[in-house]
């Protein structure tokens, strides 16, 4: 007998939670693909997907209905906006709404961080975060002294053309508020449809590695890497100064009832263990532990190759959260972290776009033989954004393989 959507959603949630709690679920949970394939599957452009909520909702619904992964980021709209959340971290009710900057919000702010389809880039290009250098090396002291003030009063004015003067700023903020309401309605509608289709609502909160705030939004990644050698003490103090604002922002996760705080790491792959252990990890660890104190597990996307730093994860208490890996050898990670950390990842996107269904099934079978025993594992693509031309039969093959071998 077919299960009701409610039963299905409960089953999926239980599966996720079992893995997160280092137990063996009924089968291996599957985190799916999303990205460019979603608008492509409905034949709409990226521009429509990013600017027309109704069309986006329909496209998401069609995709998750036809490709029923246990969970995915399909409903996620917008690009990393953490710096705005930090700027508003003294106002938790607003901070929560600025973690992602959507196309319409980008139009209102006229910022230089993002490029959106149908605006700076072609209608069918996927939205881009491009970052840049918005703070000079001799401004570290200002950041150290008053991180929130410096970010809101100086940086955001440089980044956003429409925040340059107080008058522009007033207008932009009012418009932003109106847009946030629309975005909220969109999220609620996607949630409602997901529930109808048997997908659980896993409220995801947020966090960030303090040094990544400087790399992604203030100095630029390459520049901050050089700063670590040129002005090590300044960078360290600035990172320290950002810990509290990041934690305050992360704690707003509680407002949406989140049990997990999802965030990506960017500088991890760049840094030698020496630099990682001195400038990055101690502050990231503080954020993770503080969230854990509040009963929130961190759900961290360790981008790139994290192998050199894997051991440090063992410094955290058992069951602290979920470690989602991109290029790190997943079998090695699972072995090392078995019984301590829930491990996620394992499926190379190159295989999904370039392989055949048979190859994908075979790969998943072999992988699960290695990583399934003992539980605490979630299967996911190393990078979840599937390009527009991804063969649909390959996407279905992932789901079938997990049904069979999970």
């Amino acid at each position, binding site marked *: 007998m077919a299960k009701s959507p409610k039963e299905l959603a409960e089953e999926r949630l239980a599966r996720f939670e079992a893995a997160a709690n280092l137990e063996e679920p009924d089968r291996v949970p599957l985190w799916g693909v999303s990205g460019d394939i979603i608008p492509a599957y409905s034949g709409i452009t990226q521009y429509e997907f990013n600017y027309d909520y109704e069309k986006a909702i329909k496209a998401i619904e069609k995709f998750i209905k036809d490709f029923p992964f246990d969970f995915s980021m399909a409903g996620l709209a917008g690009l990393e906006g953490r710096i705005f959340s930090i700027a508003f971290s003294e106002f938790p009710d607003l901070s929560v709404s600025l973690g992602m900057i959507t196309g319409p919000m980008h139009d209102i702010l006229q910022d230089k961080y993002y490029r959106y389809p149908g605006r700076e880039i072609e209608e069918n*290009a996927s939205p881009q975060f491009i970052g840049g250098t918005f703070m000079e090396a001799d401004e570290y002291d200002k950041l150290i002294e008053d991180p929130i003030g410096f970010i809101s009063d100086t940086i955001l004015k440089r980044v956003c053309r429409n925040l340059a003067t107080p008058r522009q700023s007033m207008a932009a903020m009012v418009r932003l508020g109106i847009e946030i309401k629309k975005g909220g309605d969109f999220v609620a509608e996607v949630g409602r449809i997901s529930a109808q289709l048997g997908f659980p609502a896993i409220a995801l909160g947020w966090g960030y590695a303090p040094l990544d705030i400087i790399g992604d939004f203030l100095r630029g990644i390459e520049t901050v890497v*050089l700063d*670590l*050698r040129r002005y090590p003490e300044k960078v360290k103090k600035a990172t320290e100064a950002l810990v509290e604002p990041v934690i305050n922002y992360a704690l707003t996760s509680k407002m949406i009832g989140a049990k997990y705080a999802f965030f990506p790491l960017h500088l991890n*792959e760049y840094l*030698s263990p020496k630099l990682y252990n001195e400038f990055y990890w101690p502050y990231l660890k503080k954020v993770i532990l503080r969230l854990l104190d509040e009963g929130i597990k961190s759900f961290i996307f360790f981008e790139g190759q994290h192998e050199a730093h894997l051991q440090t994860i063992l410094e955290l208490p058992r069951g602290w959260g979920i470690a989602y890996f991109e290029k790190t050898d997943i079998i090695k990670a699972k072995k090392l972290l078995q019984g301590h950390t829930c491990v996620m990842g394992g499926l190379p996107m*190159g295989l999904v776009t370039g392989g055949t269904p048979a190859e994908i099934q075979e790969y998943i079978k072999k992988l699960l033989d290695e990583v399934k025993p003992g539980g605490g594992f979630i299967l996911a693509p190393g*990078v979840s*954004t599937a*390009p527009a031309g991804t063969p649909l039969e390959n996407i279905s093959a992932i789901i079938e393989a997990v049904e069979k071998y999970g």
Partner: protein
Amino acid sequence: MLDELFNKIVDMEEEESINMAKAYLENGGDPQKLLEVCRNAMGVIGDKFEKGEYFLSELILGGEIFGGIMKFTLPLIKGDTKKLGKIVLGTVKDDIHNIGKDIFKAFVEAAGFEVVDIGVDTPAEKFVEAAKAHNPDIIGMSCLITAGLSPMKKTVEALKAAGITDAKIIIGGGRVDEEVKQFAGADAWADDAAKGVRLCKQLMGVEG
């Protein structure tokens, strides 16, 4: 002194390396010799990276130090610095990641290649134009996002269609592997800069 300089570069002493190189030239040192020492140091940094002793942080700084010294050294080298070959290099269309491309550029220049950098988010036509204008031995493409794979293939096709068949094509960046190489129709691939340099030398028929 040059030995000491070599060690300083390999040990990532940015300021001291640059000062020492300046002092060497001011005291009448041979810029050609200086160039060689810097190149060798970059080679060792690349090796250390491949062995897992060094990380991207060191590659980026190594590139900075090399570039910093070259700024005042290259103008002093008269006439011919005999290049191993010429490379047109860019990040593929729809992809704006430049760090990996820039690192590769620094290392392949250090190895003795001339590089024409045509930037990021580079459409096929721009690769074709640059190839026509500069007549390179090698065309290098960097690709870090999955969405860059088909533009990469299209670029290779456009180059062939434009009659540019002599130049070898090498691809690099986080998204490439053997499968992608075949898909795109490239001649070689590398997902680390040191390997890329070795392959470029091989493509030129110099031992790598």
